[in-house]
C-alpha cells in the first residue's frame, strides 16, 4: 500500500488527537494548581497554618488551624467507620456475591448508591444523627454522614480489586487443597492490597472535599480547634465556601484550597509508599 499524502494527514491528525486528549487532563490540573498558587500562594505561611482565624469578619486575618484539624478529624473518623465495614462487605460480595438473587440485588443497590447526591446524604445525616439520635452538630454526626457517603464507592472499588486478585489465584490456590478462607487470607487479600489502598485514597479525597453533607451535620464558621466527638468542628471545604461566598477574602479562599490540595497530595504520597511496600512484599503487580 502506498503512503499517500492523505494517509499521512489522517495519521498525523489521529496522533495529534490521541496525544492532545491525553495531555488535556494534566493541563487542566496544572492550570488549577497554578491558579491557586498564583492567587493564594502569598498567604501561605507558618502562621496561616498554625493559628486561629482572626479579623473583624472572622477569617479575614489569622490562620486556618482549626479547619485543618477538623478536616483531618472528619476524614480519619469517617474512614475508621466506613473502611472496615466496606472491606467485609466487599469480601462477601467478591467471594459469595453471585450465589443468590438477593446477593446480586445487594450489589446492584450498593453500586446504585455511588451516584447519590451528597446533599441527600447530608439531609439523612441531619435527620438521623443530628436530630433523631441527638448527636447534634458534631464531629461524630459529620463523620458518620461522610462514612455513609463514601461507603458505596469503597465497597464497589474494594470488591473489584478483591475479585481481580481472586480470579487470578482461585483455581491454582484451591487446586492445592486449601480452604477458601486460607486462600483469602494468604493470597487474595494481600494481592489486593494495592487496589484496597487506592480505594481508600479515593474515598479520602471524596470525603475531604465534600461540603454539603458536613454543612448540616458538623461544620461551623468558628471553633477553637478542639477535636471532640460531641463538638462541631471547622473544616477546610466549608471554610473555603464561607470565605468566598461571603466575600471575606478571596485570596485566603485560594490559600485554603491550596492547603486542602496539599493535604490530599500527602495522602496520595502515603498511599503510593504503602502500595510499593505491599508490592515488594508480595511481588504482585
Amino acid at each position, binding site marked *: 500500500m502506498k503512503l499517500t499524502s492523505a494517509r499521512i494527514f489522517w495519521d498525523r491528525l489521529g496522533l495529534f488527537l490521541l496525544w492532545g486528549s491525553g495531555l488535556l487532563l494534566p493541563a487542566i490540573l496544572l492550570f488549577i494548581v497554578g491558579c491557586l498558587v498564583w492567587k493564594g500562594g502569598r498567604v501561605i505561611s507558618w502562621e496561616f497554618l498554625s493559628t486561629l482565624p482572626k479579623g473583624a469578619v472572622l477569617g479575614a486575618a489569622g490562620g486556618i488551624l482549626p479547619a485543618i484539624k477538623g478536616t483531618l478529624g472528619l476524614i480519619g473518623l469517617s474512614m475508621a467507620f466506613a473502611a472496615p465495614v466496606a472491606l467485609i462487605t466487599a469480601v462477601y460480595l467478591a467471594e459469595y456475591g453471585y450465589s443468590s438473587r438477593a446477593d446480586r440485588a445487594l450489589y446492584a443497590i450498593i453500586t446504585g448508591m455511588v451516584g447519590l447526591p451528597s446533599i441527600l446524604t447530608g439531609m439523612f445525616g441531619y435527620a438521623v444523627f443530628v436530630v433523631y439520635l441527638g448527636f447534634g452538630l458534631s464531629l461524630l454526626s459529620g463523620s458518620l454522614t461522610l462514612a455513609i457517603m463514601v461507603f458505596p464507592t469503597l465497597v464497589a472499588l474494594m470488591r473489584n480489586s478483591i475479585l481481580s486478585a481472586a480470579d487470578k489465584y482461585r483455581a*491454582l490456590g484451591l487446586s*492445592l*487443597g486449601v480452604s477458601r478462607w486460607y486462600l483469602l487470607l494468604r493470597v487474595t487479600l494481600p494481592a489486593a492490597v494495592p487496589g484496597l489502598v487506592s480505594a481508600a485514597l479515593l474515598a479520602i479525597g471524596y470525603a475531604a472535599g465534600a461540603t454539603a453533607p458536613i454543612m448540616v451535620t458538623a461544620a461551623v464558621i468558628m471553633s477553637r480547634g478542639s477535636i471532640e466527638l460531641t463538638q462541631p468542628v471547622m473544616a477546610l471545604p466549608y471554610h473555603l465556601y464561607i470565605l468566598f461566598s461571603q466575600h471575606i477574602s478571596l485570596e485566603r479562599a485560594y490559600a485554603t484550597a491550596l492547603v486542602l490540595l496539599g493535604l490530599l497530595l500527602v495522602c496520595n504520597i502515603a498511599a503510593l509508599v504503602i502500595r510499593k511496600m505491599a508490592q*515488594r512484599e508480595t511481588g504482585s503487580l
Partner: protein
Amino acid sequence: MNITLRNLNVWYSACHILKDVGVEFKSRQISAIIGPSGCGKTTLLKSINRTAELQPGFRRKGDILLAGIDLYRALDAVTARRSIAMVFQNPIALPMSIKENVLFGPRYYGIARTEAEAVAERCLREVALWDEVKDKLSSPASNLSGGQLQRLSIARVLALDPKAILFDEPCSSLDIRSIRQIEELLLKLADRVTVVIVTHNLQQARRIARDTALLLEGELVEFGETEKLLSQPQKERSKDFLFGQLG
C-alpha cells in the same frame, strides 16, 4: 496408586464435555493424554483434581477412583485435591516468597516451625531448583523465569505429598532446555507417584509416557502403549488425527 475412571461424563451447563470416558492410569509410570485443542483434556484433569466443580454449571456422572477409593464420595474436595495434585499449563507465582510458595500447602495442613525449612529444601532439591534459589528464598517468586517458575509449581505440589500428579501441558511455554529438565523430573517422579500428563507434543508422549490416551471431542478413542498407539492406531478417527496432522 492407580487412577480409574468409569463411565465418566462431565457437563458444563448444557455442554457435554466428557462422554463415557473409561480408563486406568497405572501407578508408578507416566500416562499421556493427547488430542486436539478443546477435546476435553484439561477438563478431564480438572475433574480428577476436583477443581472442575468450582466452575458454575459443572455436572458429573460416573466415578473416579484412586486406588479403589471413590474420589467424589469417600473424600471431601480438599483432601482429594491434596491427594491428586495438579500442575497447570501456565505457571503462576503466588504473591509471596519462593519459600512460602513451596510451603503454601503444608502451612495450611499444619507443619512444625522446625520442619518447614527442611520440607522447602527437600522439595526444591527434588525439582533441581535449590542451587538456583537457595540464596534468595525470601525474595518474591514472581522474579523467577518461566522454566524456574514451572519447577517451583512442581515443588509446591510435591510439598503436599500427593499420591498422583496431573500435568496440564507443563512444557508448552518453555524453551528446549527447560523442557528437558521437566521431562527428566517427570520420569524421576514416576518412580513413586502416578503421573498423568496432557501434551500437544506427540514426540514428548513418545519420550516419556508408557501409556497414551487419545481423546477426541470428549470421547476416549484409544488407549494403550504409547508406541503402539502412535504408530499403529486401530481406528479411522485416530489415524485422521495422528497422521492427518503430520501431513
